[in-house]
């Protein structure tokens, strides 16, 4: 197992090096388009790392995390629609809104267990989705263009993320930062408490740990990280639409986490990369690519337990 862990770490380091040099590498081999593919991969990675905190470490199967991505993104778009482009206002408010939503939905959802939890998180996410669809002023389901990316101007400082390369490395930096943060988090006392709830929640309660509070806190942090991914996504795509919070998006995000290996630090990054690269490659081969992709997912589940990260899924049934 230690050995496997090392192999994984080497793999992940390679991946990060790849992220770092893609903007040089891709144009060199005449595939400049891959710079955007990888920017997208890193954004989804951030969201997946966020979801992994509750899904992998906390054992809470949330089927509604696309809602927080959407809320983060929509906040940026709505600010931009009203011509408030200052990132120092946009970003904190977006994070706050995702966090508050996660607090509200989490507080109610965490009263339930198992499949009930899966479904209630889905229900809340669908409500947010329909909210987006019915927001006439903000484009309804046609979505909303963001004509100006966030601007960071304060006291003579002027940091622009209009340039795609700058944006790429900003995302890269944020990804590293988030991975580092989550790493500290899961190894802290708080992280132990979260992981304990996944392993044996009733025992932890018996020890006098109010698990609900910790789970809720993790849920909120996870929502905020997804909100951050949403902020980046909105800025990157210069566009938001309710599609970004429809339930298949939540499902895809889950798959990225599972594919990479739940409850491992880098699994979600690996998973997001694999998921997006695979669908990109397969879809360029044939329009019937789902015929291959579907069975591939099944085979992955049946024969590569614990995902690509290689750490054994702890086989816990929830509930």
């Amino acid at each position, binding site marked *: 197992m230690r050995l496997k862990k090392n192999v994984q770490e080497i793999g992940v380091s390679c991946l990060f090096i790849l992220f770092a040099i893609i903007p040089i590498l891709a144009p060199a081999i005449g595939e400049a388009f891959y710079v955007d593919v990888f920017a997208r991969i890193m954004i989804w990675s951030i969201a997946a790392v966020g979801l992994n905190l509750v899904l992998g470490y906390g054992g809470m199967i949330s089927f509604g995390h696309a809602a927080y991505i959407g809320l983060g993104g929509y906040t940026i778009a709505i600010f931009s629609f009203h011509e408030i482009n200052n990132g120092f206002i946009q970003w904190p408010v977006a994070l706050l809104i995702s966090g508050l939503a996660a607090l509200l939905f989490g507080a109610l959802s965490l009263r339930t267990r198992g499949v009930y939890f899966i479904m209630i998180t889905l229900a809340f996410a669908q409500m947010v989705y329909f909210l987006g669809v019915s927001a006439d002023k903000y484009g309804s389901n046609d979505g909303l263009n963001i004509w100006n990316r966030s601007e960071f101007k304060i006291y003579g400082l002027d940091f622009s993320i209009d340039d795609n390369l700058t944006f790429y490395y900003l995302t890269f930096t944020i990804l590293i930062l988030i991975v580092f943060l989550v790493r500290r988090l899961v190894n802290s006392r708080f992280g132990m*408490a979260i992981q*304990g709830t996944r392993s044996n929640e009733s025992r932890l309660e018996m*020890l*006098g740990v109010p698990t609900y509070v910790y789970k809720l806190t993790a849920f909120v942090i996870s929502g905020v990280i997804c909100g951050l991914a949403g902020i980046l996504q909105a800025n990157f795509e210069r566009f938001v639409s309710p599609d970004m919070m429809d339930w298949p998006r939540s499902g895809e995000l889950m798959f990225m986490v599972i594919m990479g290996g739940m409850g491992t630090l880098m699994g979600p990054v690996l998973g997001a990369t694999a998921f997006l690269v695979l669908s990109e490659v397969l879809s360029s081969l044939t329009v019937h690519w789902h015929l291959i992709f579907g069975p591939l997912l099944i085979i992955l589940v049946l024969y590569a337990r614990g995902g690509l990260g290689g750490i054994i899924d702890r086989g816990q049934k929830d509930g």
Partner: protein
Amino acid sequence: MIGVKKMVSPLLRTRALNKSFGGIVATKDLSIEIFEGQICAVIGPNGAGKTTLVNLLSGNLRADSGDIIFEDDNVTGLSPSALCSRGIARSFQITSIFPEFSLLENVCFSVQASLGHSFHFWKDVRADERVINPAKEVLERIGLLSRANVLAGNLAHGEKRQLEIAMVLATRPKLLLLDEPMAGMGAEESRHLVTLLNELRSDYSMLLVEHDMDAVFALADKITVLVYGKSIAEGKPSEIKVNNAVLEAYLGSSES
């Protein structure tokens, strides 16, 4: 620390405790006392209400009537976590550990719980002396330090039972409620555990529910015999051994 006044009052006592499930009486007018430093054993045939008593004292069950007084405070009806933080800790008859975590981490969970809230987001637990040192101490005391990094799920049964006790100790209790700690153990493992509990008696008071009579007589300062939720005898091991009612109700039928 122990004042003159407290010398006379018991660490824990119950007053006329009653609990029944539907029509079945599990605890009837039970009044027991445990003094500081004592090991008080509770024995009785199956269905005598021993585990119910532990559940009542640990707060997992709520008594129908009666009081529980701990350190002169009425703690009746408090939650398990509240009781835990006051110093009453229990082990479980069925092993309840964190199987995917190492021994050390298992004990860390307990230590963390006893340290109050866990809203520490930054410092690595493995570098957190306030957590790791007490955990290691407990493991050392229980004789499992050399296996600290083994996954708890991979332990032998006896070791799991020891870990259970380590986790209880790590919450820094004053009173241990041990619910059949020897359950399922071989003779060798039992003897080992008796030695261990004997070493612990200087620092902890214990309520011991146990079927293993050798262990009970080796450890207990005082024995309470329960039958159908009612205490039929109480006294030193030597007294209980010769008590006719007890022999009739319990020992006679079970010792073979």
